[in-house]
């Protein structure tokens, strides 16, 4: 990694922390909060690509592990990795990577704007939602002893918010690509 890559990775980890300052919404029937932080992996993937995006999520997890309260609601510490949301945390890393992979492959500079938007949206939905949920739900089902289908249904509450976040990530991704392209300069 170049120095610039390291700085970008740090920057997106910092963006995650800032997103964590937005108060989460805790729900009664599922021990996972609705949080602005799930926007982070999508943004990172769309803007700085697969490798750097995933690295920024790993860096955040390192800060969590040290015990710093950088997750929404001021949480942190190794205990989180044994808690019900641990699957999502891993999902953020893989999700950012997949989002980045798809964006790098399918978004081109000079493409029509709608095509770019569609590709970014697809990337964010597949990486930031599908892949992320896969990890999150599998772990949650394992933890709670409930069936995968059951936890999946319960977590449908995240979907409207996360779709909105995917749209935001797509718009931001296309705006940054237009204004200050970084995506295709590979790490």
């Amino acid at each position, binding site marked *: 990694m170049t120095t610039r890559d390291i700085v970008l990775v740090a920057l997106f980890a910092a963006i995650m922390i800032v997103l964590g300052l937005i108060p989460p919404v805790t729900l009664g029937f599922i021990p996972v909060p609705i949080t602005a932080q799930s926007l982070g992996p999508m943004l990172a993937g769309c803007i700085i690509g697969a490798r750097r995006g995933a690295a920024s999520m790993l860096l955040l997890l390192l800060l969590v592990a040290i015990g710093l309260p950088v997750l929404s609601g001021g949480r942190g510490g190794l205990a989180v990795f044994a808690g019900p949301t641990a699957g999502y945390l891993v999902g953020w890393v893989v999700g950012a990577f997949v989002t980045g992979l798809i964006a790098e492959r399918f978004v081109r500079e000079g493409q029509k704007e709608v095509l770019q938007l569609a590709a970014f949206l697809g990337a964010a939905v597949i990486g930031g939602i599908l892949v992320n949920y896969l990890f999150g739900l599998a772990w949650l089902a394992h933890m709670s002893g409930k069936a995968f289908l059951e936890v999946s249904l319960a977590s449908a509450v995240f979907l409207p918010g996360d779709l909105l976040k995917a749209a935001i990530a797509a718009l931001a991704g296309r*705006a940054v690509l237009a*204004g*200050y392209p970084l995506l295709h300069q590979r790490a």
Partner: protein
Amino acid sequence: MDIVFTAATVSYAGRVALHPLSLTLSERRIGVVGLNGSGKTTMARLINGLVKPSGGAVTVDGLDTVKDEEAARGKTGFIFQNPQHQMILPILAEDIAFGLKNRGLDKAEIAARTAAILERFGISHLARRRVHELSGGETQLGAIASVLVTGPKLLILDEPTNQLDLRNRALIARTIAGLPEQVLVISHDLPLLDGFDRVLVFHEGRLAADAPPAQAIRAYREIAAC
């Protein structure tokens, strides 16, 4: 248009940045000079309500900048010390059009006004360029265009020639001279204020002099020399 300060004062976290200031500005060309940290930007931001007075009041064309915040703000346009900070969309024409979007204008009207203002500043060729790749002088012109397109009566420029070369300084000076709008300029680039109607000198949060350019700049030089 009259800008009236009535014992307006500003403190940040308990430290006074601007001591009570009472002043009426109605000239067409107003300059502001002073040492770093003397309160120039703070005073200018009071005028368009970006900074709220900790005491006293500021009115613009009779509108209070706190009570009638939105209406008062509509009367003034502000160019930041670093104009890149106020470019919101990535492409210049998009950015200029963006300022008009909330005003209930239709698409054709927005496009026409955008084209007209670009034309007025002779930067039509920059319409599709990336805002963050424009040169220093181009960025300044673009920022001025994006602010004037909404039709303010007073334009405030905070150190508009900071990063500029001699040629661009002359360009901005000519541009300012040609504006029909009322203008207030903060600057460390003293020749820019030649021919202005009135120049204010700030020192440690207080108005230290208020005179025509030559005399005010002499006062500023004395302060700087101490």
